[in-house]
């Protein structure tokens, strides 16, 4: 299953709640303000590493670029709107809005 997260993990509990519920093997796609999680050197990279032990984390490139994120932490797969569509075809999705 695909879970989308669009809130910043620095100010909202959304990513934490989503990752608690998402089953091993599922995917989490960070979009909009959710992509702040991937800034290399940020405190939330630790949480992402924990999540990536048994889930795949994606982040939307246009949102990363819009926010001036200079370096994406390791392990996160960067995709475009096309890739988002492909993930949404591959499995059902839930939005943690």
């Amino acid at each position: 299953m695909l879970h989308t997260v669009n809130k910043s993990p620095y100010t909202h509990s959304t990513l934490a709640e989503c990752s608690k519920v998402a089953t091993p093997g599922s995917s989490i796609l960070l979009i909009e303000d959710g992509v702040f999680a991937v800034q290399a050197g940020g405190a939330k990279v630790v949480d992402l590493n924990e999540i990536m032990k048994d889930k795949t984390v994606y982040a939307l490139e246009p949102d990363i670029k819009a926010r001036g994120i200079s370096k994406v932490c390791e392990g996160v797969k960067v995709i475009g709107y096309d890739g988002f569509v492909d993930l949404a075809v591959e499995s059902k999705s839930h939005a943690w809005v």
Partner: protein
Amino acid sequence: MNDDDVKKIMFIMRQAPHGTIYSYEGLETILVFGAFEQEMSMAFIGDGIFAAVKGQDTEGIGIKGFIKTYGVLEDYGVDHMYVDKESMEERGLTPEDFVVDVEVVSAAEIGRIMEEQHATIPY
């Protein structure tokens, strides 16, 4: 209607009541979905669990309350109401604090049930 045509639909309630309208308009959705005779369930996670807590009196804030709606959801076809155990305990609540009978389960269990659904809708 053939059994194969019945779809599982789950409403994921994560927003606190009254501060925003999501949980209230979410209930309106569930009532309408009731007419379509699908297999419906709800999961309360995070602040969503506050929406189903007993003793809400909205007179002072001048907003129409909706707590009584929970009582009719079973009649509208909501078969399960799951509450995330950790969210409940963190907020100092117990199963007796809810206006309806809820099933207290782990977050992992909610995740597993989500995977079985035809669709999940967030409020």
